Protein backbone atom coordinates (compact mmCIF):
# COMPACT_ATOMS: atom_id res chain seq x y z
CA UNK A 1 0.00 0.00 0.00
CA UNK A 2 1.22 3.51 -0.69
CA UNK A 3 2.72 5.66 1.99
CA UNK A 4 0.05 8.28 1.47
CA UNK A 5 -2.72 5.88 2.17
CA UNK A 6 -0.86 4.45 5.11
CA UNK A 7 -0.52 7.87 6.57
CA UNK A 8 -4.12 8.85 6.13
CA UNK A 9 -5.86 5.65 7.06
CA UNK A 10 -3.40 3.56 8.97
CA UNK A 11 -4.83 0.55 7.21
CA UNK A 12 -2.66 -1.99 5.59
CA UNK A 13 -4.54 -5.20 5.05
CA UNK A 14 -1.36 -7.08 4.23
CA UNK A 15 0.01 -6.37 7.67
CA UNK A 16 -2.68 -8.55 9.05
CA UNK A 17 -1.48 -11.48 7.05
CA UNK A 18 1.17 -13.64 8.57
CA UNK A 19 3.91 -15.73 7.18
CA UNK A 20 7.20 -15.21 5.51
CA UNK A 21 5.71 -13.69 2.38
CA UNK A 22 4.02 -10.92 4.32
CA UNK A 23 7.14 -10.24 6.36
CA UNK A 24 9.31 -9.97 3.29
CA UNK A 25 6.79 -7.68 1.67
CA UNK A 26 6.81 -5.41 4.71
CA UNK A 27 10.56 -5.39 4.81
CA UNK A 28 10.89 -4.35 1.19
CA UNK A 29 8.22 -1.73 1.49
CA UNK A 30 10.27 0.13 4.03
CA UNK A 31 11.57 3.36 2.58
CA UNK A 32 15.01 3.16 4.14
CA UNK A 33 15.61 -0.40 3.11
CA UNK A 34 14.82 0.64 -0.43
CA UNK A 35 17.19 3.61 -0.20
CA UNK A 36 19.97 1.34 0.90
CA UNK A 37 19.26 -1.18 -1.85
CA UNK A 38 19.13 1.60 -4.38
CA UNK A 39 22.50 3.04 -3.42
CA UNK A 40 24.17 -0.34 -3.34
CA UNK A 41 22.57 -1.32 -6.62
CA UNK A 42 23.65 1.92 -8.23
CA UNK A 43 27.26 1.54 -7.16
CA UNK A 44 27.27 -2.09 -8.24
CA UNK A 45 25.88 -1.31 -11.69
CA UNK A 46 28.29 1.59 -12.07
CA UNK A 47 31.22 -0.60 -11.13
CA UNK A 48 30.18 -3.33 -13.51
CA UNK A 49 29.56 -0.93 -16.38
CA UNK A 50 32.90 0.72 -15.85
CA UNK A 51 34.71 -2.56 -16.24
CA UNK A 52 32.68 -4.68 -18.62
CA UNK A 53 30.26 -2.68 -20.66
CA UNK A 54 30.75 -1.08 -24.04
CA UNK A 55 31.16 2.38 -22.57
CA UNK A 56 33.81 1.21 -20.17
CA UNK A 57 36.50 3.49 -21.43
CA UNK A 58 34.37 6.53 -20.78
CA UNK A 59 33.50 5.51 -17.28
CA UNK A 60 35.80 5.26 -14.30
CA UNK A 61 34.84 2.93 -11.46
CA UNK A 62 33.64 4.46 -8.21
CA UNK A 63 36.91 3.45 -6.64
CA UNK A 64 38.88 5.21 -9.35
CA UNK A 65 36.89 8.41 -8.76
CA UNK A 66 37.69 8.21 -5.09
CA UNK A 67 41.43 7.70 -5.60
CA UNK A 68 41.50 10.56 -8.06
CA UNK A 69 39.87 12.86 -5.55
CA UNK A 70 42.39 11.82 -2.92
CA UNK A 71 45.22 12.39 -5.34
CA UNK A 72 44.02 15.86 -6.23
CA UNK A 73 43.79 16.75 -2.57
CA UNK A 74 47.51 16.27 -2.30
CA UNK A 75 48.95 16.95 -5.75
CA UNK A 76 48.95 20.39 -7.21
CA UNK A 77 47.17 21.18 -10.42
CA UNK A 78 48.16 24.50 -11.95
CA UNK A 79 49.56 25.49 -8.61
CA UNK A 80 46.72 24.48 -6.34
CA UNK A 81 45.35 21.38 -4.67
CA UNK A 82 41.71 20.43 -4.97
CA UNK A 83 40.98 22.49 -1.86
CA UNK A 84 42.89 25.43 -3.23
CA UNK A 85 40.72 25.38 -6.32
CA UNK A 86 37.61 25.03 -4.21
CA UNK A 87 38.59 28.06 -2.23
CA UNK A 88 39.28 30.00 -5.43
CA UNK A 89 35.73 29.32 -6.59
CA UNK A 90 34.21 30.02 -3.20
CA UNK A 91 36.06 33.28 -2.87
CA UNK A 92 34.70 34.51 -6.18
CA UNK A 93 31.21 33.44 -5.19
CA UNK A 94 31.36 35.21 -1.86
CA UNK A 95 32.60 38.46 -3.34
CA UNK A 96 30.14 38.44 -6.23
CA UNK A 97 27.31 37.39 -3.95
CA UNK A 98 28.03 40.19 -1.50
CA UNK A 99 28.18 42.83 -4.22
CA UNK A 100 25.08 41.48 -5.94
CA UNK A 101 23.14 41.68 -2.69
CA UNK A 102 24.52 45.11 -1.87
CA UNK A 103 23.17 46.37 -5.19
CA UNK A 104 19.98 44.34 -5.50
CA UNK A 105 18.49 44.56 -2.02
CA UNK A 106 18.52 48.34 -1.53
CA UNK A 107 17.38 48.88 -5.10
CA UNK A 108 14.46 46.49 -4.64
CA UNK A 109 13.66 48.28 -1.41
CA UNK A 110 13.52 51.71 -3.01
CA UNK A 111 11.46 50.36 -5.86
CA UNK A 112 8.95 48.93 -3.43
CA UNK A 113 8.77 52.04 -1.29
CA UNK A 114 8.75 54.74 -3.95
CA UNK A 115 6.46 54.71 -6.97
CA UNK A 116 8.69 56.97 -9.04
CA UNK A 117 11.83 54.93 -8.51
CA UNK A 118 9.79 51.89 -9.46
CA UNK A 119 8.49 53.49 -12.66
CA UNK A 120 11.99 54.44 -13.73
CA UNK A 121 13.93 51.32 -12.78
CA UNK A 122 11.49 48.51 -13.40
CA UNK A 123 11.31 48.69 -17.22
CA UNK A 124 15.09 48.59 -17.55
CA UNK A 125 15.27 45.74 -15.06
CA UNK A 126 12.58 43.80 -16.93
CA UNK A 127 14.68 44.19 -20.06
CA UNK A 128 17.76 42.77 -18.41
CA UNK A 129 16.03 40.06 -16.39
CA UNK A 130 15.35 37.47 -19.12
CA UNK A 131 18.98 37.45 -20.26
CA UNK A 132 20.74 34.58 -18.47
CA UNK A 133 23.76 35.77 -16.48
CA UNK A 134 25.94 33.37 -18.38
CA UNK A 135 25.21 35.16 -21.61
CA UNK A 136 27.08 38.13 -20.18
CA UNK A 137 30.31 36.16 -20.17
CA UNK A 138 31.50 37.27 -23.56
CA UNK A 139 30.98 40.94 -22.76
CA UNK A 140 32.55 40.44 -19.39
CA UNK A 141 35.67 38.84 -20.77
CA UNK A 142 35.87 41.48 -23.47
CA UNK A 143 35.79 44.17 -20.83
CA UNK A 144 37.78 42.66 -18.00
CA UNK A 145 39.93 39.97 -19.53
CA UNK A 146 40.25 36.49 -18.12
CA UNK A 147 41.05 37.54 -14.57
CA UNK A 148 39.03 37.57 -11.40
CA UNK A 149 36.98 40.63 -12.32
CA UNK A 150 35.25 39.07 -15.28
CA UNK A 151 34.10 36.13 -13.20
CA UNK A 152 32.98 38.21 -10.26
CA UNK A 153 31.02 40.39 -12.68
CA UNK A 154 28.97 37.43 -13.91
CA UNK A 155 28.27 36.38 -10.35
CA UNK A 156 27.14 39.88 -9.48
CA UNK A 157 24.76 39.90 -12.44
CA UNK A 158 23.45 36.49 -11.48
CA UNK A 159 22.98 37.20 -7.78
CA UNK A 160 21.55 40.67 -8.08
CA UNK A 161 18.45 39.65 -10.03
CA UNK A 162 16.86 37.30 -7.44
CA UNK A 163 18.02 39.57 -4.62
CA UNK A 164 16.21 42.51 -6.17
CA UNK A 165 13.08 40.57 -7.07
CA UNK A 166 12.69 39.10 -3.60
CA UNK A 167 13.49 42.33 -1.86
CA UNK A 168 10.93 44.13 -4.04
CA UNK A 169 8.20 41.54 -3.60
CA UNK A 170 8.90 40.88 0.05
CA UNK A 171 8.34 44.49 0.91
CA UNK A 172 5.56 45.12 -1.54
CA UNK A 173 3.49 42.23 -0.26
CA UNK A 174 3.57 43.12 3.41
CA UNK A 175 0.00 43.09 4.71
CA UNK A 176 -1.02 46.75 4.79
CA UNK A 177 -3.12 46.18 7.90
CA UNK A 178 0.11 45.64 9.82
CA UNK A 179 0.85 49.29 9.16
CA UNK A 180 -2.58 50.17 10.56
CA UNK A 181 -1.68 48.21 13.66
CA UNK A 182 1.60 49.98 14.24
CA UNK A 183 0.14 53.39 13.62
CA UNK A 184 -2.60 52.72 16.16
CA UNK A 185 0.12 51.85 18.63
CA UNK A 186 1.66 55.22 18.04
CA UNK A 187 4.34 54.48 15.46
CA UNK A 188 5.70 57.24 13.25
CA UNK A 189 6.92 56.80 9.67
CA UNK A 190 10.45 55.82 10.63
CA UNK A 191 9.18 53.32 13.16
CA UNK A 192 6.84 51.87 10.53
CA UNK A 193 9.84 51.09 8.35
CA UNK A 194 11.99 49.66 11.10
CA UNK A 195 9.39 47.78 13.06
CA UNK A 196 7.14 46.50 10.30
CA UNK A 197 8.59 46.81 6.79
CA UNK A 198 11.95 45.18 7.43
CA UNK A 199 10.93 42.32 9.72
CA UNK A 200 7.84 41.55 7.65
CA UNK A 201 9.78 41.52 4.43
CA UNK A 202 12.76 39.66 5.77
CA UNK A 203 11.68 36.05 5.16
CA UNK A 204 11.12 36.74 1.47
CA UNK A 205 14.40 38.59 1.36
CA UNK A 206 16.17 35.62 2.85
CA UNK A 207 14.58 33.30 0.33
CA UNK A 208 16.06 35.61 -2.29
CA UNK A 209 19.48 35.14 -0.69
CA UNK A 210 19.15 31.39 -0.99
CA UNK A 211 18.24 31.58 -4.65
CA UNK A 212 20.97 34.12 -5.31
CA UNK A 213 23.58 31.90 -3.69
CA UNK A 214 22.73 28.85 -5.75
CA UNK A 215 22.65 30.97 -8.91
CA UNK A 216 26.01 32.45 -7.92
CA UNK A 217 27.51 29.00 -7.54
CA UNK A 218 26.28 28.05 -11.02
CA UNK A 219 27.62 31.31 -12.46
CA UNK A 220 31.10 30.89 -11.07
CA UNK A 221 31.32 27.44 -12.56
CA UNK A 222 30.13 28.66 -15.93
CA UNK A 223 32.62 31.49 -15.92
CA UNK A 224 35.41 29.12 -14.98
CA UNK A 225 34.44 26.71 -17.72
CA UNK A 226 34.88 29.39 -20.34
CA UNK A 227 38.23 30.69 -19.26
CA UNK A 228 40.06 30.20 -16.00
CA UNK A 229 43.26 28.94 -14.47
CA UNK A 230 41.79 28.00 -11.13
CA UNK A 231 38.57 26.93 -9.57
CA UNK A 232 36.30 23.91 -9.63
CA UNK A 233 35.10 24.72 -13.12
CA UNK A 234 38.71 24.70 -14.25
CA UNK A 235 39.18 21.25 -12.77
CA UNK A 236 36.26 19.65 -14.53
CA UNK A 237 37.00 21.17 -17.89
CA UNK A 238 40.64 20.17 -17.54
CA UNK A 239 39.48 16.64 -16.83
CA UNK A 240 37.59 16.80 -20.09
CA UNK A 241 40.57 18.13 -22.03
CA UNK A 242 43.04 15.53 -20.78
CA UNK A 243 40.61 12.62 -21.03
CA UNK A 244 40.50 11.99 -17.31
CA UNK A 245 36.87 11.15 -16.54
CA UNK A 246 37.69 10.40 -12.93
CA UNK A 247 38.75 14.01 -12.56
CA UNK A 248 35.53 15.21 -14.13
CA UNK A 249 33.30 13.08 -11.95
CA UNK A 250 35.36 13.67 -8.85
CA UNK A 251 35.13 17.38 -9.46
CA UNK A 252 31.39 17.14 -9.96
CA UNK A 253 31.05 15.27 -6.67
CA UNK A 254 32.85 18.02 -4.79
CA UNK A 255 30.81 20.68 -6.59
CA UNK A 256 27.55 18.95 -5.72
CA UNK A 257 28.58 18.44 -2.09
CA UNK A 258 29.53 22.09 -1.67
CA UNK A 259 26.30 23.26 -3.30
CA UNK A 260 24.34 21.00 -0.98
CA UNK A 261 26.21 22.19 2.10
CA UNK A 262 25.79 25.85 1.23
CA UNK A 263 22.05 25.43 0.90
CA UNK A 264 21.86 23.45 4.15
CA UNK A 265 23.85 26.13 5.90
CA UNK A 266 21.52 28.87 4.73
CA UNK A 267 18.52 26.83 5.84
CA UNK A 268 19.96 26.54 9.32
CA UNK A 269 20.72 30.25 9.42
CA UNK A 270 17.16 30.97 8.37
CA UNK A 271 15.76 28.91 11.22
CA UNK A 272 17.80 30.94 13.66
CA UNK A 273 17.04 34.36 12.26
CA UNK A 274 13.40 33.81 11.34
CA UNK A 275 11.89 31.48 13.92
CA UNK A 276 8.40 32.53 12.97
CA UNK A 277 6.51 30.81 10.17
CA UNK A 278 7.37 32.18 6.79
CA UNK A 279 4.54 33.53 4.68
CA UNK A 280 5.37 33.04 1.06
CA UNK A 281 4.65 36.03 -1.17
CA UNK A 282 2.42 35.00 -4.10
Amino acid sequence: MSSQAEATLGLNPRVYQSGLGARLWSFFHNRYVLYGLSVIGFLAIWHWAALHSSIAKFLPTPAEVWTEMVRLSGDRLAGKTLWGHLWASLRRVLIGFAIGLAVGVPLGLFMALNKYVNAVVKPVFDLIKPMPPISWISLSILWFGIGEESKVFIIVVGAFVPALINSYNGIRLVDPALYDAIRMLGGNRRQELLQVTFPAGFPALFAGFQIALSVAWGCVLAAELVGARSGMGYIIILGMKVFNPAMIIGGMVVIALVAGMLSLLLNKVEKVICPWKRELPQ
Partner: protein
Amino acid sequence: MKPDQPKIVCQDVSKTFTQRFGKVTIPVLESIDLAVEENEFLVIVGPGQCGKTTLLRIMAGLETPSTGRVSLDGAPVTGPGPDRGLVFQKYMLFPWRTVVGNVEMGPKLRGVPKAERREIAGHYIKLVGLEGFEKAYPHQLSGGMKQRVGIARAYANNPKVMLLDEPFGQLDAQTRYLMEQETVRIWEAEKRTVIFVTNNIDEAIYLGDRIITMEGKLPGRLKSTYQVTLPRPREHMDVEFLELRHQITEETELLL
Protein backbone atom coordinates in the same frame (compact mmCIF):
# COMPACT_ATOMS: atom_id res chain seq x y z
CA MET B 1 -12.99 67.69 31.60
CA LYS B 2 -16.52 67.71 32.97
CA PRO B 3 -17.52 64.34 34.43
CA ASP B 4 -20.79 64.24 32.53
CA GLN B 5 -19.33 65.06 29.11
CA PRO B 6 -19.50 62.08 26.74
CA LYS B 7 -16.17 60.43 26.00
CA ILE B 8 -16.47 60.09 22.22
CA VAL B 9 -18.74 62.12 20.00
CA CYS B 10 -19.46 61.71 16.31
CA GLN B 11 -21.14 64.75 14.83
CA ASP B 12 -22.90 64.35 11.51
CA VAL B 13 -20.21 62.03 10.23
CA SER B 14 -20.45 60.76 6.70
CA LYS B 15 -17.95 59.03 4.43
CA THR B 16 -17.85 58.67 0.70
CA PHE B 17 -15.14 56.70 -1.06
CA THR B 18 -14.16 57.89 -4.52
CA GLN B 19 -12.50 55.99 -7.29
CA ARG B 20 -11.08 56.99 -10.64
CA PHE B 21 -10.28 60.48 -9.57
CA GLY B 22 -13.75 61.38 -8.39
CA LYS B 23 -15.74 59.84 -11.20
CA VAL B 24 -17.06 56.94 -9.14
CA THR B 25 -18.40 57.63 -5.65
CA ILE B 26 -19.41 55.08 -3.08
CA PRO B 27 -21.29 56.51 -0.12
CA VAL B 28 -20.51 54.34 2.87
CA LEU B 29 -21.79 56.32 5.84
CA GLU B 30 -24.37 59.02 6.19
CA SER B 31 -25.36 61.36 9.02
CA ILE B 32 -23.88 59.45 11.89
CA ASP B 33 -24.53 61.14 15.20
CA LEU B 34 -23.24 59.28 18.17
CA ALA B 35 -22.18 59.99 21.73
CA VAL B 36 -20.57 57.39 23.95
CA GLU B 37 -20.32 57.89 27.69
CA GLU B 38 -17.25 57.19 29.76
CA ASN B 39 -16.80 53.49 30.57
CA GLU B 40 -19.87 52.62 28.57
CA PHE B 41 -19.83 49.36 26.61
CA LEU B 42 -21.41 50.25 23.30
CA VAL B 43 -22.09 47.60 20.68
CA ILE B 44 -22.79 48.44 17.06
CA VAL B 45 -24.62 45.63 15.27
CA GLY B 46 -25.14 45.29 11.58
CA PRO B 47 -24.89 42.79 8.73
CA GLY B 48 -21.85 42.61 6.51
CA GLN B 49 -21.04 45.55 4.22
CA CYS B 50 -23.08 48.08 6.15
CA GLY B 51 -20.30 50.49 6.95
CA LYS B 52 -19.75 49.62 10.59
CA THR B 53 -16.08 48.82 10.15
CA THR B 54 -15.59 52.12 8.34
CA LEU B 55 -17.27 53.93 11.21
CA LEU B 56 -14.92 52.27 13.66
CA ARG B 57 -11.89 53.12 11.54
CA ILE B 58 -12.99 56.75 11.41
CA MET B 59 -13.23 56.79 15.20
CA ALA B 60 -9.81 55.18 15.34
CA GLY B 61 -8.41 57.85 13.08
CA LEU B 62 -7.39 55.52 10.26
CA GLU B 63 -9.89 57.16 7.93
CA THR B 64 -11.03 60.77 7.80
CA PRO B 65 -14.74 61.55 7.56
CA SER B 66 -15.94 63.30 4.41
CA THR B 67 -18.16 65.53 6.53
CA GLY B 68 -18.62 65.98 10.24
CA ARG B 69 -16.12 65.31 12.94
CA VAL B 70 -15.21 62.92 15.69
CA SER B 71 -13.99 64.15 19.04
CA LEU B 72 -12.46 62.34 21.96
CA ASP B 73 -12.67 64.14 25.30
CA GLY B 74 -13.59 67.26 23.40
CA ALA B 75 -10.53 67.19 21.16
CA PRO B 76 -10.92 66.28 17.49
CA VAL B 77 -9.57 62.96 16.26
CA THR B 78 -7.14 63.61 13.42
CA GLY B 79 -5.15 60.43 13.04
CA PRO B 80 -4.33 57.08 14.59
CA GLY B 81 -2.83 57.01 18.03
CA PRO B 82 -2.33 54.93 21.14
CA ASP B 83 -5.03 56.75 23.08
CA ARG B 84 -7.48 54.65 21.09
CA GLY B 85 -6.83 50.93 21.31
CA LEU B 86 -7.86 48.98 18.19
CA VAL B 87 -8.40 45.23 18.15
CA PHE B 88 -8.52 43.78 14.64
CA GLN B 89 -10.68 40.98 13.34
CA LYS B 90 -7.63 39.31 11.81
CA TYR B 91 -5.53 39.80 14.94
CA MET B 92 -2.77 41.65 13.09
CA LEU B 93 -0.11 40.53 15.52
CA PHE B 94 3.47 41.03 14.43
CA PRO B 95 4.48 37.46 13.57
CA TRP B 96 8.17 38.10 14.14
CA ARG B 97 7.65 39.17 17.74
CA THR B 98 6.75 37.03 20.72
CA VAL B 99 3.63 37.59 22.78
CA VAL B 100 5.48 39.91 25.11
CA GLY B 101 7.14 41.58 22.13
CA ASN B 102 3.74 42.34 20.67
CA VAL B 103 2.15 43.57 23.87
CA GLU B 104 5.03 45.87 24.74
CA MET B 105 5.18 47.36 21.24
CA GLY B 106 3.14 50.46 22.11
CA PRO B 107 5.28 51.45 25.11
CA LYS B 108 8.39 50.57 23.14
CA LEU B 109 7.42 52.98 20.37
CA ARG B 110 7.04 55.70 22.97
CA GLY B 111 10.50 55.05 24.33
CA VAL B 112 9.50 53.53 27.65
CA PRO B 113 12.58 51.81 29.15
CA LYS B 114 12.78 48.05 28.94
CA ALA B 115 12.20 47.08 32.57
CA GLU B 116 9.15 49.25 32.84
CA ARG B 117 7.55 48.14 29.63
CA ARG B 118 8.19 44.49 30.49
CA GLU B 119 6.26 45.09 33.67
CA ILE B 120 3.38 46.77 31.89
CA ALA B 121 3.27 43.99 29.32
CA GLY B 122 3.40 41.36 32.02
CA HIS B 123 0.46 42.93 33.81
CA TYR B 124 -1.75 42.90 30.73
CA ILE B 125 -0.67 39.45 29.62
CA LYS B 126 -1.80 38.25 33.00
CA LEU B 127 -5.04 40.21 32.72
CA VAL B 128 -6.03 38.46 29.50
CA GLY B 129 -5.12 35.09 30.94
CA LEU B 130 -2.01 34.28 28.93
CA GLU B 131 0.46 34.02 31.75
CA GLY B 132 3.18 31.55 30.81
CA PHE B 133 2.95 32.23 27.09
CA GLU B 134 5.13 35.31 27.03
CA LYS B 135 7.83 33.78 24.86
CA ALA B 136 5.49 32.10 22.39
CA TYR B 137 5.23 33.26 18.78
CA PRO B 138 1.83 34.08 17.27
CA HIS B 139 1.95 31.12 14.90
CA GLN B 140 2.12 28.83 17.90
CA LEU B 141 -1.07 30.21 19.41
CA SER B 142 -4.71 29.36 18.78
CA GLY B 143 -7.14 31.96 17.42
CA GLY B 144 -8.57 32.78 20.81
CA MET B 145 -5.13 33.21 22.31
CA LYS B 146 -4.03 35.45 19.47
CA GLN B 147 -6.97 37.72 20.07
CA ARG B 148 -6.17 37.90 23.76
CA VAL B 149 -2.74 39.15 22.76
CA GLY B 150 -4.45 41.69 20.51
CA ILE B 151 -6.51 42.93 23.43
CA ALA B 152 -3.52 43.06 25.77
CA ARG B 153 -1.51 44.93 23.14
CA ALA B 154 -4.18 47.59 22.85
CA TYR B 155 -4.63 47.85 26.62
CA ALA B 156 -0.93 48.24 27.23
CA ASN B 157 -1.07 51.82 26.01
CA ASN B 158 -3.64 52.74 28.61
CA PRO B 159 -6.06 53.94 25.96
CA LYS B 160 -9.02 56.13 26.69
CA VAL B 161 -11.21 54.08 24.38
CA MET B 162 -11.08 50.48 23.20
CA LEU B 163 -12.31 49.85 19.66
CA LEU B 164 -12.98 46.26 18.67
CA ASP B 165 -13.73 45.37 15.06
CA GLU B 166 -15.60 42.04 14.96
CA PRO B 167 -12.77 40.59 17.03
CA PHE B 168 -14.24 37.11 17.34
CA GLY B 169 -15.34 36.68 13.75
CA GLN B 170 -12.52 34.24 12.97
CA LEU B 171 -13.18 31.97 15.93
CA ASP B 172 -15.30 28.87 16.19
CA ALA B 173 -18.54 29.06 18.15
CA GLN B 174 -17.23 27.57 21.40
CA THR B 175 -14.16 29.76 21.52
CA ARG B 176 -16.34 32.71 20.67
CA TYR B 177 -18.57 32.18 23.71
CA LEU B 178 -15.50 31.79 25.86
CA MET B 179 -13.96 35.01 24.54
CA GLU B 180 -17.21 36.89 25.12
CA GLN B 181 -17.06 35.85 28.74
CA GLU B 182 -13.41 36.80 28.94
CA THR B 183 -14.16 40.19 27.41
CA VAL B 184 -16.68 40.96 30.14
CA ARG B 185 -14.24 39.77 32.82
CA ILE B 186 -11.37 41.86 31.46
CA TRP B 187 -13.54 44.92 31.01
CA GLU B 188 -14.87 44.69 34.53
CA ALA B 189 -11.31 44.32 35.87
CA GLU B 190 -10.07 47.38 33.98
CA LYS B 191 -12.95 49.53 32.92
CA ARG B 192 -12.66 51.52 29.72
CA THR B 193 -15.03 53.05 27.24
CA VAL B 194 -15.61 50.32 24.66
CA ILE B 195 -17.03 50.44 21.16
CA PHE B 196 -17.55 46.92 19.88
CA VAL B 197 -18.63 46.13 16.32
CA THR B 198 -20.26 42.81 15.48
CA ASN B 199 -22.78 41.15 13.18
CA ASN B 200 -23.94 38.75 15.88
CA ILE B 201 -26.98 39.82 17.89
CA ASP B 202 -26.41 37.30 20.67
CA GLU B 203 -22.95 38.64 21.15
CA ALA B 204 -24.25 42.20 21.21
CA ILE B 205 -26.81 41.51 23.90
CA TYR B 206 -24.36 39.48 25.97
CA LEU B 207 -21.77 42.23 25.99
CA GLY B 208 -23.30 45.66 25.61
CA ASP B 209 -24.71 48.32 27.90
CA ARG B 210 -26.18 49.88 24.81
CA ILE B 211 -26.78 48.43 21.37
CA ILE B 212 -27.08 50.47 18.21
CA THR B 213 -28.26 48.76 15.04
CA MET B 214 -27.27 49.88 11.58
CA GLU B 215 -29.12 49.82 8.30
CA GLY B 216 -28.52 46.73 6.24
CA LYS B 217 -27.48 48.57 3.10
CA LEU B 218 -25.18 51.37 2.03
CA PRO B 219 -24.98 54.21 2.84
CA GLY B 220 -24.83 53.06 6.42
CA ARG B 221 -27.10 54.84 8.84
CA LEU B 222 -27.86 54.27 12.47
CA LYS B 223 -31.18 52.64 13.00
CA SER B 224 -32.28 52.05 16.57
CA THR B 225 -30.82 52.09 20.02
CA TYR B 226 -31.45 49.55 22.76
CA GLN B 227 -30.44 49.90 26.38
CA VAL B 228 -29.50 46.61 27.98
CA THR B 229 -29.95 46.68 31.71
CA LEU B 230 -29.61 42.97 32.43
CA PRO B 231 -27.06 42.28 35.14
CA ARG B 232 -23.82 40.62 34.16
CA PRO B 233 -22.88 37.82 33.70
CA ARG B 234 -25.79 37.36 31.35
CA GLU B 235 -27.39 34.09 30.32
CA HIS B 236 -28.14 33.49 26.68
CA MET B 237 -31.23 31.49 27.59
CA ASP B 238 -32.79 33.97 30.02
CA VAL B 239 -36.27 35.14 29.15
CA GLU B 240 -35.34 38.83 29.02
CA PHE B 241 -32.30 38.02 26.91
CA LEU B 242 -34.40 36.08 24.43
CA GLU B 243 -37.08 38.75 24.35
CA LEU B 244 -34.57 41.42 23.49
CA ARG B 245 -33.05 39.12 20.92
CA HIS B 246 -36.43 38.59 19.35
CA GLN B 247 -37.06 42.31 19.30
CA ILE B 248 -33.80 43.18 17.61
CA THR B 249 -34.01 40.30 15.16
CA GLU B 250 -37.46 41.37 14.06
CA GLU B 251 -36.37 44.90 13.58
CA THR B 252 -33.19 44.23 11.69
CA GLU B 253 -34.25 41.06 9.91
CA LEU B 254 -30.81 39.77 10.68
CA LEU B 255 -30.66 36.02 10.54
CA LEU B 256 -28.75 34.32 13.28
